[in-house]
Structure formats: structure tokens, C-alpha cells
């Protein structure tokens, strides 16, 4: 019990209560049921429209021809795999510092989703590399760093399942994620720091892309769709986790039997 809680409930204690209730699994479970359709429907619409546009309507690249259409999967997948890793590390840090269960659950479930996007980025990249560079794989800085990202994801997943105690597992994987976080700027700046085969960024979220609207806009749609899709999947998995952890609680039993 901290000093602020031993005195009369001042603003500090009330803020703490609000902060911790906001992060309660019960609150999350009850609220998230309503959020899911707001995530799933726009996600499907954005991804479908982006990919249909990219596959059938976007112009081909004057150098790469139609293989360029792989861009509409490869770049969003790469963005997401890196973003998710950062979120996983941040959620892990929140758990380490404040012991918030919901953050622990979020971090745990970021890993498989992020790993699947990393696999998508690597696979589509390799397939795209064959007609473009003549090679499925080169050990250039960006590709190698992305492969390391996948290994980090798999390491987090393996470490979590190897530890029996749930709290220890969460804290250990949080530390691993934070250590691995250094890889993210390496991936991002690899094309600037090293002589790489992988081209420098043509599509970023901060600058005007070096390509016409009909080419970059569908990619943006897919990126946004993927973010919503990730959030949807994360919340679904977190809901399952809440049930796994709290099924003995009366409030959850009521929820489940009311369905």
C-alpha cells in the first residue's frame, strides 16, 4: 500500500483507482464486445478495396511490370510486423512497470499476429526478389534484419510457452521484446546506413511518396486495413485470454451463460 492510499482518498488515490479500473480485464471484456464489428467490417472493406485496386486497377511499374503488384501486400505486411513489435514491447514495458494484467495479455497476443505478418513480408519479398533481382534471398542489411525480427518473434513465443508461471513468462518475454526493440530502427535505417540491394523507402507515412496516386493510395488502404485487422485479431485473442484466466469469476460466468 503506497503512502497516497493511507491518507483520505485524495486525487492521487482516485486517479490510481481510475487508471487501474480502466485496465481491468472485466472492463475490457465487456466493452470490447461492442468494438469488434467497428474493427472487423472496416478492416475487411479496406483490405479488399486496397488489394482489388492494387491487383486489377493500379498501373504496372515501368521497370518491374506486374510483379510490382506484390507491393500491395509486401509493404503493409512489413509496416505491420514492425509496428506490432513496438506495441508488443511497449505493452510488455507497461506490464513490467505497472503490473497491468491487460498489458501483459496484449503483449502475449501481439507475438503470433506480428510473426505472421513478418512471415508474409519475408515471403512476398523473396517472391518479388526473384523476377526483380534474380535472387530469392540476399543477405543484405534490411532482409537480414527483418529475418532477425521474425526470429525475435518466434523467440518470444517459445520463451512464453517454456515458462510455467504466467507472470514470470510475461515479464521475461517483455524483457526480450525490449531488448529486441533495437532491431526496429536498424530495419528502418538499414537502407540508408548500408549499401543494400533493397531499395530505399519510396512509401512512408510521413512524406509524399515517389509514385503517382493510383499506385500508392491502394497501399495506404491496405496498411490501414491491416492495422484494423491486427487490432480486431488482438482483441479477439485477448477476450479468449480473459475467459481462460477469469472463468471462475461470477461476472464472467454470467456473461457466458447469457450468450
Amino acid at each position, binding site marked *: 500500500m503506497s503512502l497516497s492510499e493511507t491518507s483520505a482518498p485524495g486525487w492521487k488515490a482516485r486517479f490510481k483507482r481510475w487508471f487501474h479500473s480502466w485496465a481491468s480485464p472485466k472492463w475490457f471484456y465487456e466493452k470490447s464486445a461492442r468494438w469488434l464489428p467497428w474493427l472487423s467490417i472496416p478492416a475487411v472493406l479496406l483490405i479488399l478495396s486496397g488489394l482489388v485496386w492494387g491487383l486489377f486497377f493500379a498501373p*504496372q511499374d515501368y521497370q518491374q511490370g*506486374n510483379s510490382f503488384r506484390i507491393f500491395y501486400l509486401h509493404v503493409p505486411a512489413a509496416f505491420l510486423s514492425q509496428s506490432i513489435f513496438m506495441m508488443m514491447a511497449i505493452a510488455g514495458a507497461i506490464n513490467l512497470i505497472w503490473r497491468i494484467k491487460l498489458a501483459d495479455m496484449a503483449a502475449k497476443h501481439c507475438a503470433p499476429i506480428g510473426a505472421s505478418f513478418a512471415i508474409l513480408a519475408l515471403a512476398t519479398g523473396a517472391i518479388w526478389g526473384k*523476377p526483380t533481382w534474380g535472387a530469392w534471398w540476399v543477405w543484405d542489411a534490411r532482409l537480414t534484419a527483418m529475418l532477425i525480427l521474425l526470429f525475435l518473434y518466434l523467440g518470444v513465443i517459445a520463451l512464453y510457452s517454456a515458462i510455467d508461471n504466467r507472470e514470470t513468462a510475461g515479464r521475461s518475454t517483455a524483457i526480450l521484446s525490449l531488448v529486441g526493440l533495437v532491431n526496429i530502427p536498424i530495419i528502418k535505417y538499414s537502407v540508408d546506413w548500408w549499401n543494400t540491394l533493397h531499395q530505399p523507402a519510396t512509401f512512408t507515412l510521413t512524406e509524399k511518396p515517389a509514385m503517382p496516386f493510383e499506385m500508392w493510395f491502394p497501399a495506404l488502404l491496405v496498411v490501414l486495413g491491416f492495422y484494423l485487422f491486427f487490432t480486431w485479431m488482438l482483441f479477439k485473442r485477448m477476450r479468449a485470454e480473459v475467459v481462460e484466466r477469469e472463468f471462475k469469476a461470477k461476472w464472467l460466468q454470467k456473461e457466458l451463460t447469457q450468450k
Partner: protein
Amino acid sequence: MGQFESIQALIDMGGHGLYVWLSYGIGLAVIAFNVVSANSANKKAEERAKKYIRRQELEG
């Protein structure tokens, strides 16, 4: 449709058909994997919880 004069041209993708369609197939597989595994996690958790609830009711 769109940039392609025929279905054949769409499949062929100017010689890059294998690369493009393989990539999109993997994309579909990744999305499907995510949806299926999230759904099965939910189902498993709910079944476990419901079994516990039923046992509680039986034991009274």
C-alpha cells in the same frame, strides 16, 4: 477488367503470374490463419469455462 484485357492476361500478369498469385495466396493464408486461430482460441476458452460452470451447478 481494369488493366487487363482478358482473364488469361490477368492470370499471366505479363509473365509474372506465378510470383503475383503465389504472393496473394500466401497473403490469404496468413489472414485465414489469423482468423481461424483467434476463433479457435475463443471457442476453446468458452468451452472450458462452460464445462466448469456446468460442473459447479451439478455439485451445487
